[in-house]
């Protein structure tokens, strides 16, 4: 059913007589052309674009819990394409372009809202580095503005301009960046994929792989029984290593906890997304009014989806240093997600490394923004067995060749990215 004004009026008047499930509750068939493991944003977007762009409809998305229960439903919902390196910037810029039309594409309001992001600058060296980045963004047609202190002050007068340990000296802004409603993105892609005939199987946990004598992957073992597939694609984010372990595959990723926080709702306070340049703190305000914020990783490897006090304190020290007027607002909820942190801080989208297997992982703490482009490029990779030009830099062998994409220059230590 298409959502339209007419449809809303009719349902309003009839007490929702004419509604139907957003997607079918599917039970798995014995075999599919493509089985995607992980019903987060990336898995569902991949299924959607496999069907839409490549005409591959015989697809199942296997989700151990409910769709969007992983990081897709736990992130701080920021999308942006303010990257520095040529391996990254065109990919993320394509993602922003897809965000810009996603409501219309999916006929679902994912509330993508381009209220802009400002990365604050606190030193001359930081300004130089951000200028390089801003110019890289302009080269990729992503748009960027360098703000001076006064411009930042006009835009965000509530920041601490007068009493700060690290004074604000300006900012790099991407006006086209913004936030989206994370759950709606998941549901929109699920509904869209379902319309093309994709089976979305919830409460079905993948527990292992089916392999033939050559070692090629030919399907998956699940809590609902084995499922055969020509191609098995992994979009498991923080759980990737748990499954690849069953294939004796070690990947250059570590699973680490990242926390997110939301305050009680207040009247509009913050225009767009703000990142502090002298500490780990970033913040935006949801349409409901809550401040949504986060900071550094907890720093240890874990699969437990919860964080601890030391990082909460660190994050809020940053928050109070930046915006001392939020002190009396209250923290409403706090949670953790498991991030698939890679050795260079950049993602992996690739064919293999075993026949029949396709990898999509290493999204670090920044894969939400990539959701549409990741689905787009991964679908291409699966359908054509060739990397998409936009994700060509994300191959696994880059760690062997040295063509790493280390935006931060932090080196091969996942918790530093």
């Amino acid at each position, binding site marked *: 059913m298409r959502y339209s004004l007419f449809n809303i009026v009719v349902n309003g008047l009839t007490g929702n007589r004419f509604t139907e499930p957003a997607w079918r509750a599917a039970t798995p068939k014995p075999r599919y052309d493509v089985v995607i493991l992980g019903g987060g944003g990336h898995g569902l977007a991949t299924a959607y674009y496999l069907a839409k762009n490549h005409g591959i409809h015989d697809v199942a998305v296997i989700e151990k819990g409910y769709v969007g229960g992983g990081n897709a439903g736990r992130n701080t919902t920021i999308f942006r394409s303010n990257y520095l390196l040529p391996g990254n910037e065109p990919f993320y810029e394509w993602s922003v372009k897809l965000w810009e039309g996603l409501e219309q594409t999916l006929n679902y309001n994912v509330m993508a809202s381009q209220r802009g992001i400002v990365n604050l600058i606190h030193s001359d060296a930081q300004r130089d580095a951000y200028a390089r980045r*801003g110019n890289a963004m302009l080269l990729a047609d992503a748009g960027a503005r360098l703000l001076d202190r006064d411009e930042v002050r006009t835009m965000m007068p509530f920041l601490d301009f007068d009493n700060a*340990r690290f004074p604000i000296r300006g900012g790099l802004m991407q006006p086209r960046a913004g936030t989206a409603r994370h759950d709606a993105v998941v549901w929109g892609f699920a509904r869209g994929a379902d319309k093309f005939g994709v089976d979305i199987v919830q409460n079905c946990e993948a527990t292992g792989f089916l392999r033939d004598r050559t070692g090629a992957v030919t399907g998956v073992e699940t809590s609902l029984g084995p499922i055969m597939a020509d191609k098995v694609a992994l979009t498991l984010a923080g759980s990737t290593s748990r499954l690849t372990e069953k294939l004796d595959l070690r990947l250059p990723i570590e699973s680490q906890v990242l926390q997110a926080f939301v305050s009680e709702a207040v009247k509009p306070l913050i225009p767009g997304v703000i990142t502090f340049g002298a500490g780990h703190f970033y913040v935006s305000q949801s349409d409901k009014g809550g401040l949504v914020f986060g900071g550094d990783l907890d720093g240890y490897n874990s699969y437990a989806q919860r964080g601890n006090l030391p990082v909460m304190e660190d994050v809020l020290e940053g928050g109070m*240093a930046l915006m*001392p007027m939020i002190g009396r607002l209250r923290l409403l909820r706090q949670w953790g997600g498991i991030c698939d942190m890679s050795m260079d801080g950049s993602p992996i989208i690739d064919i293999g490394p075993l026949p029949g297997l396709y990898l999509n992982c290493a999204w670090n703490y920044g894969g939400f923004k990539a959701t549409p482009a990741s689905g787009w490029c991964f679908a291409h990779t699966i359908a054509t067995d060739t990397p998409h030009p936009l994700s060509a830099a994300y191959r696994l062998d880059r760690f062997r060749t*040295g*063509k790493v994409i280390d935006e931060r*220059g932090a*080196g091969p230590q996942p918790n530093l990215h």
Partner: protein
Amino acid sequence: MSRLAKGGQIDRSRPLAFTFDDIAYQGYFGDTLASALLANDVKLVGRSFKYHRPRGILTAGSEEPNALVELRSGARREPNTRATTAELFDGLEAASQNRWPSLAFDAMAVNGLLSPFFGAAFYYKTFMWPKAAWEKLYEPAIRRAAGLGRAADGPDPDHYEKAHAFCDLLVIGSGPAGLEAALAAGRAGARVILAEEDFAFGGRLLSEKTTIEDDTPGAYVTRAIAELKSFTNVRLMVRTAVFGAYDDEYGALERVADHVAVPAPFQPRQRLWKIIPKRVVLAAGAMDRPIVFGGNDRPGVMHAAAAQTYVNRFGVAPAKTSAVFSNNDAAWRAAFDAHDAGASVKAIVDVRTDVSPEITGGAQKRGIRTILGGKVVSTRGKTLGIVSVETGHGRETLYVDGLMMSGGFSPNVHLTCHHGGKPSWDETIAAFVPGKCPPGMTVAGAATGTFSLADCLADGGRKGAAAARDLGFSAADPTPPRAESEATGQKPFWWVHESKGLAFVDFQNDVKAKDVALAHKEGFSSVEHLKRYTTLGMATDQGKLGNVAGLAILAEVSGRTIPQTGTTMFRPPWTPVALAAFAGHHRGPDFRPTRPTPSHAFAEELGGQFVEAGPWLRAAYFPHRGEPTLRDSVNREVLAVRERVGWIDVSTFGKIELSGPDVGAFLDRVYINTFSTLKPGKVRYGVMLREDGIVMDDGTTTRLSEDRWAMTTTTANAGRVYQHLVFCHQVLWPELDVRMASTTEQWAQIAIAGPRARDVLQGVVDDAAAVSAEALPYMGAAETTVMGGVKARVFRVSFSGELGYEVAVPARHGEALARAIAKAGAAQDIVPYGLEALAVMRIEKGHVSGPELNGQTSAADLGFARMASTKKDYIGRVLAGREAFRDPRRPSLVGIKPVDRTQMLRAGAHFLKPGAKPTTGNDQGWLSSATWSPTLGHSIGLGFLVGGSAMVGEVFRAWDGLRGTDIEVEICAPCFIDPEGVRLRG
């Protein structure tokens, strides 16, 4: 006035004045804002989130979803404050929120009329047409309408403290179970902390009348607290909410001064406790839950347990004439208490048909009418006036201004979930009870689903004693105080199907029973989907009240049992916590420590302007009168150094002292070049790589004697390099006999640079001959004394490219050394120079620094390829040999000059070929550092260019679209003055 003539635990001798929406009222000491408002007949207190429905006071605790106010004003404004937990103080100001123009008439209430169209998740299906309208029109309107209160106007003027506490047993909650648990463990000698979020101890005992040892519950509480206070091993913490169970520690918030207008001088507003207990008894009680029926949100509808609290604890009748709508015995007792206190109770409507005679007898005795098997289907009135009841024999209208509602009790299992434990469904009490608890936690009393007072007292004592025994204390199960085993009958009941009007499950977020059904119809039938789709449980009460009913309705519409449908989990915090409490004192200038350099005071005297360099404050430049811009001062400082001499404090460089016979071998493995061959008394420049072949840091290392070495690192990487060396030694090569210590803070280090540097140096060292040109050649080092016997190290090194020395003395002598150098240099016309001049000179000289050592560049990229030894292994060597490192398209270091020498370069520009379009594909590299060179009289820069040194002489463009410039540049070698190094060897 609804204040009862007597009773309650308020102090009627201490009246307190307060205002709500600018109208003055009076309450008493011991009131909450909610009880005081009720006493003044203020029933309409707030508006709901979505439909802006009028709302009143629903509860008497931190779960309150409706009565949220802005407390205090200006920079102390606290939005969304629960009137039910705000302690009344003299002069309290409160205002209603989320309404316009007034609380009584709110224009946005029109949303409620449109509720058929604005159901659950309607946003996702609409606001998409036309495309541009979402951001321009709909979203701004939604954002304005959403949100509740307003944030404070300015920086929070109060301060916040942090504290740690350690104990054997942490008891959370001071109701009957908590008190007995604390007593049992306290008597056994265990170190106990009893934390209570309320401002009074006693929990439900404060609200009830059931007798203990033939005395009032209040008397029991007083005795228990007195006994606990007598133990030195017990700490009582009132106004302290334990909000989260983390790994090995509990977060708790103590509201130190929220019950006064302004904290006393030096008193924090709140204190964040990190409590590290060995065992925990969670005695958090249980919560009355709503019944979903038409108009259940109308001001005047209140939880029965809350009404009981207002009557017994605060001496307030929440209504003149009440009815009761319930499914359990406890609500009847609440009605009896109200009646006994003099408030009229017109009827008790209970969904059950078989209520025990013991209970119905109580009603009969009091002459209260009972309607068994009845249901409330709707309510009417701006504030409640009319209740319509389905009696089983038809509809009947009750004219009452209060309705006491109770849907049974949910144990407060929240903290048991914080480590991922799932509560399990208990059919007999129709509630979730604790599942797997965090390590060391047991649950006692009503929080386990044991509701009678006698059972709670016994359970608490048992759990407290067991925890103590578990820790090796000897503690027998105590004999619980004698108390009534009151009736706790109930029948699961969630939803009046015959409801007329909107029936709410989640009050604040306006989630209705219909929304739950719609979510199910649209496929959102998992509990988490239900929550996210309808926002049920996402409001400030986090679903404490509504979650169970929502789940029950979902179970019913989907034809499943509750356990089949799911469970409700809770994330921290238990109750919202002020953000400032987590930051404590780390805000403003105290956000991070400030490290001044040893010569800071002297530099200040000299008029130095300071700048943050990581944690340090360093002098950036020293303006003279008549120098209008920074550039003027910097040019003067640079020329003075190049022509005469200058000094600068370089103590911020990282310093690491290494000793032992294997240091040479150790350094050979961490640096790309060889150090083991360095002779004592010599300095060598070195570059070290990360494991992945990228440059980590550069700096000089000096061999002071055969087995003593001193390393310097860049300021930025001081910590990181030390960490790296320790890792290498402890993990990779523990067999090497090497010891090391960071001495960054132990040594002050001043650089003297310029053609006359030696003359100045000789004026401060005690033995001038020790630093003569012959005795101390370039890259030599000497251990000597300065200023009449102060131990010093002199290194002949240069960052500026001039004849240069760095003199290190123990940090406490740093300032004196700087003064001595300035004095000794007076004859040479010495200048102090700052970070800015240093940066100019290093670019002129082509020395790489932070912008070049950015963690993305290899030794070869930086022009260090020939420094790398081929005769030894070192960290990073193998991975630096990878294909990508040999790629000819890899940008490498070059020097840059504008073709038109009057043009200014700016770092951050990208290189393009002449005529090329500005696209990612045409990108040829970037300008990493740029400056005006006063020595050359034009702008210069360093950058990374595809082709690197092979491009010397070519012309490119430095394209800076961000700042709208596009300049032709000439590529040159990355060294602009004295490439042969004649000056520094002078």
